Every structure is written in structure tokens, then in C-alpha cells.
């Protein structure tokens, strides 16, 4: 099935107009020696066969486990209205809104999304989206390098280790100095950070809540940065922004984050949504598209892509970023989510996550041999220390029906016995209780 509607008779009429007698002749520019050496693909499948095939594949995935896995990617509730609205094909079969008169729907929605992100993060200007939280954080680094002319990046150990690995890859050929600072008692280590930052430092990368779920107020670090002409970026979990001090309130220059929790399914890693907001002064250094509100020839309100002279299609090798396609439809989902959940609902979601996580800590604390790390306050995710290898423990809990958490040994040396547990508003008291019982059964075996 090729979804082609041209009949053989029509093909002949069209070839006549082209002045050739076969389609083959239209490919005459491809020399015979460059004909494909092979094109061994299977024959096509009907829609019905295709669906059965993928149903079978889908059933091989353990998506039915009760999910306590987080690590920056969470199993949140997604209102049904989002799927219904986002699947309006006027949205999802549109291209980038280059012709504003035909794209006011996408453009206004993105403008509203940008406003949401500014409101969440307490900063002035947000862009129309980036690929994910990790690439957004690297874009923040690039901005800082361009704004300061310096090439040293200081990364807090509480920043998602996956993001730090990504930044390591991207920086490999760019003569950038990367400095990793380990956390102290789960929190940003002030002394170590202050020692590391100097007049060569472009930016300091922080995260709130950090990878261990720990809440912080980084105002003191931001102040020190600014005294030395250094920019500071905070990668944030957007749901926590319902309650926690915003990056803007802490004085950050840039906020970034992963928007998956705002109405996007987990989908085995993507598509996700990188968001970014900045202080007004950094607007022209910002990567990616941005939508502006303006007026038309009859003075009616309308929306357009703006500040395009920063972008790759105009500035080519001198652009602020190479991003072209972004995650527009994911941004639309996030905007729909925030609109549906609303001002009060958003606080409720955050409070549910926080309160249930505290309850889970309390339940797990009672298990002999298991220690809950509590030296610093946490939000919806927390670390426990097990009397056994955490990966082994999590493996056993699979058989009891749980994705119990993330074994930290994978990214942090010496933390092989630590498990990171995430709680969302979807987890019930009953499920949390069952997890605690299952955990007890496994560790006391």
C-alpha cells in the first residue's frame, strides 16, 4: 500500500506532459552503475496484518508493572481531552508555521505555551521548545559560552547523570573544560562549587529537585556566580514548579527542563519536550524558534515566528543553534495539560506527589535493613539504601509486579546498594503499601 491515487491512465497523461514515455526516463540522471546493489525488503502488509503484528510486539513489553521508576521521567496522569484535541489533524499534520496566515492555531498555542513556561519558571522569555531536557541544558551551555566568551562549565553532581553524559559527548570537540562536582549529603556542595568557579567559568549547571529528588534553594550559588560574571542555569522538574521557588526567584539566568511530565506519554524515551526560558537580556542568544504576538494590516492581533535572524536557515554556520524541527506537538500537549489541570489542579498534583512520597518513605523506613536517605528534604523521589545490590533487588521485584525504582549504581560508583524511588499522583496508598511489603519480602529473604 503506497497511498498513491494516480491511475495508470493518468500516469500516461502526465508522462506525455513531461515529454517522456516512461517513469524510468525521469531517473535518467542516476547512472546505471549507481543502481541499487540490493533492495531486499519484505512485501507490504495490509492495515489489519500490520495492527496484529504490532499488537503482538507491544504485548512483549512489560508496561503493566506498577511504576515507581522516575529518574526525570514520570508516570503522570494524562487527561483524555489531550489525546482528543492533539489528534486534530490541523495540528498534527501541519509543518513548521512558516506561513503565519495559515498557522495561527499552532502559533497562538505556542505563544500561550511560552507564557506557561515563563509563569512556571519565573523568567521573562521562553522558546517554542527544544528536543529534550538534556539537549536544552547543553543549549544553555552554548548560550553561556557565547555570552561570556569563556569555555569552562561546572556541573553539579545532582544534575541528571544522563544529561551530564550528553553534555560530555557534545563538548568533546569544542575545547570546553567540564568540571563535575559531587553532591554532599544529596545536596549541591557549596564549598566545592565555590572553589571550582573562576573567571574562566561560563556557566554553572544545577538541578532542582536534583537527581536524588532533593529540594534546594540555589540563590547563594547564583549570587556567587554573578559576582564572577558567570551565568547560572537550573534544570527543573516542571511539576515541582507548582510549589517550589522558581529559577527566576533564585536569580537564575536560564531555566531548562524536561516537559514529559506535562501530559506526554513515556513512550520508551520519546518524543519528549525540552523547555527553556531566559532573562530578557539573553533573548537574542536563545536557541530555537520563538513566537511573538503582533498585529496584521488591519490591526488585528496575530502571531508570527520572530527573531528568525538568529536561526540556522538565515545565519547558517553562525546561528545560535542548529535546531530546525523542534517538539511543537509535544509543546502543544504540555500547554493543553497545563490548561486542563489549571492553577489549583497543578498545585494539587504536586502536593499529591509530595505527600505520597512522604508516606512511601514512612512505610519503607520500617523495613529491617532498609535505610531511607533523609538528610535533605525531597520532593517526589527519594533514595533508599538496601542491604543488597539494588539492581538485583529491583530485578526480583519485577516478578512481584513492580518497576520498583532506579538502581543508582549504574551512574554513581559506590552506590550499588541504593535505589531511587519515584512517586506520582497515580500511585495509590494500596500500591505503595504493596511495594513496601514486596520490598520487605525481597530483602528479608
Amino acid at each position, binding site marked *: 500500500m503506497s497511498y498513491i491515487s494516480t491511475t495508470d491512465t493518468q500516469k500516461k497523461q502526465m508522462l506525455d506532459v513531461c515529454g517522456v514515455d516512461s517513469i524510468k526516463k525521469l531517473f535518467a540522471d542516476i547512472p546505471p552503475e549507481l543502481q541499487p546493489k540490493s533492495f531486499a525488503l519484505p512485501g507490504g502488509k495490509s492495515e489489519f496484518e500490520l495492527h496484529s503484528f504490532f499488537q503482538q510486539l507491544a504485548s512483549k513489553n512489560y508496561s503493566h508493572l506498577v511504576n515507581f521508576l522516575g529518574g526525570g521521567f514520570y508516570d503522570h496522569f494524562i487527561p483524555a481531552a489531550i489525546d482528543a484535541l492533539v489528534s486534530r489533524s490541523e495540528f498534527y499534520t501541519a509543518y513548521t508555521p512558516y506561513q503565519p496566515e495559515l498557522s495561527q492555531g499552532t502559533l497562538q498555542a505556542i505563544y500561550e505555551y511560552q507564557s506557561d513556561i515563563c509563569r512556571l519558571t519565573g523568567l521573562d522569555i521562553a522558546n517554542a521548545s527544544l528536543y529534550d531536557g538534556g539537549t536544552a541544558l547543553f543549549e544553555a551551555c552554548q548560550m553561556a559560552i557565547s555570552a561570556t566568551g569563556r569555555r569552562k562549565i561546572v556541573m553539579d553532581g545532582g544534575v541528571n547523570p544522563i544529561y551530564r553524559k550528553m553534555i560530555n559527548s557534545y563538548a568533546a570537540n569544542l575545547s570546553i573544560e567540564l568540571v563535575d562536582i559531587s553532591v554532599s549529603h544529596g545536596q549541591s556542595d557549596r564549598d566545592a562549587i565555590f572553589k571550582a568557579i573562576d573567571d574562566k567559568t561560563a556557566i554553572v549547571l544545577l538541578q532542582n529537585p536534583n537527581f536524588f529528588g532533593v529540594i534546594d534553594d540555589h540563590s547563594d550559588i547564583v549570587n556567587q556566580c554573578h559576582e564572577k560574571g558567570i551565568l547560572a542555569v537550573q534544570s527543573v522538574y516542571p511539576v515541582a514548579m507548582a510549589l517550589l521557588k522558581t529559577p527566576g526567584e533564585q536569580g537564575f539566568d536560564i531555566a531548562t527542563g524536561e516537559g514529559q511530565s506535562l501530559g506526554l506519554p513515556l513512550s520508551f524515551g520519546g518524543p519528549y519536550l525540552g523547555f527553556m526560558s531566559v532573562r530578557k537580556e539573553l533573548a537574542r542568544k536563545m536557541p530555537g524558534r520563538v513566537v511573538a504576538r503582533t498585529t496584521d494590516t488591519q490591526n488585528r492581533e496575530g502571531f508570527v515566528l520572530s527573531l528568525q*535572524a538568529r536561526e540556522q536557515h*538565515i545565519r547558517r554556520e*553562525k546561528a545560535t543553534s542548529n535546531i530546525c524541527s523542534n517538539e511543537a506537538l509535544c509543546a502543544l500537549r504540555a500547554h493543553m495539560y497545563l490548561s486542563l489541570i489549571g492553577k489549583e489542579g497543578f498545585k494539587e498534583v504536586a502536593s499529591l506527589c509530595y505527600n505520597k512520597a512522604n508516606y512511601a518513605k514512612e512505610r519503607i523506613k520500617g523495613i529491617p535493613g532498609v535505610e531511607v536517605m533523609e538528610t535533605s528534604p525531597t520532593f517526589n523521589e527519594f533514595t533508599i539504601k538496601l542491604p543488597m545490590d539494588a539492581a538485583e533487588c529491583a530485578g526480583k521485584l519485577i516478578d512481584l509486579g513492580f518497576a520498583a525504582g532506579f538502581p543508582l549504581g549504574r551512574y554513581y560508583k559506590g552506590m550499588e546498594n541504593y535505589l531511587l524511588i519515584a512517586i506520582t499522583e497515580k500511585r495509590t496508598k494500596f500500591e505503595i503499601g504493596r511495594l513496601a511489603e514486596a520490598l520487605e519480602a525481597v530483602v528479608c529473604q
Partner: protein
Amino acid sequence: MVPADRKYAKTHEWVKIEGNLAVVGISDHAQDSLGDITFVDLPKPGAQVRGGSECAVIESVKAAGDLYSPVSGKIAEINESLETVPEKINTDPYGEGWIIKIKDFNAAEFDNLLDAAAYENFLESEA
């Protein structure tokens, strides 16, 4: 008409000598092809510039152009009013729309630039 009191680079900048300073802007042709200018990213006074290398960026709605300094020297002054009224480059490219002034500039480089007639010929050959 291209003013005859100054010299031109093939990258469409003009240079006019005022006392010991070389004043630099872009030609009417250049501003016209950029369209409505919305932003100028100016260098810092005191910065060294090299002849033929980029020293500022001029942005319009749908284009961006580099300003190549026609002569080497040191930035003596920048036209700060362009930060708020960049469209001066559109309305008065040869006067109020000047962009930078260079001191201690390389006079030999200035001599090698096109005069008004040569620049006009160059524009015609490009069209």
C-alpha cells in the same frame, strides 16, 4: 547616487575619514537588500578590528548581515543610538546610520578600497 566623499568595500561597507577617525557604515544598496533593520550587534569600544573581518552583525526581520571592517584599527566609538533606533541605517545609511568609528586605522587599506565610481560599477556588474 553613491556619495563621492568616501570609499567602499565590495562587501558594501563605506568608510569616510573624519579627522583621524575612519567612520564606517553600510551602503544604501546594502540596507535596501537587508530590508527593515531591527537590531545591530555592536562591538565594544577599544576592541581591535582587522581589515576584512567581521566586527558587527546587522539583523533585519528575515536576514542578517555581517559588517566587515574595511580597515584594521581600534574601535574608537560605536553608534549607540542604533541600539534603540536601528532603522536609522535604513533611513540615513550615509549619515545618522553610521555604525562604528575606527582610530589608528591602516591608511594603506583605506587607499585600496573602491571609490564611488568603481563601487557603482561593481554594483552594476553584480545586478
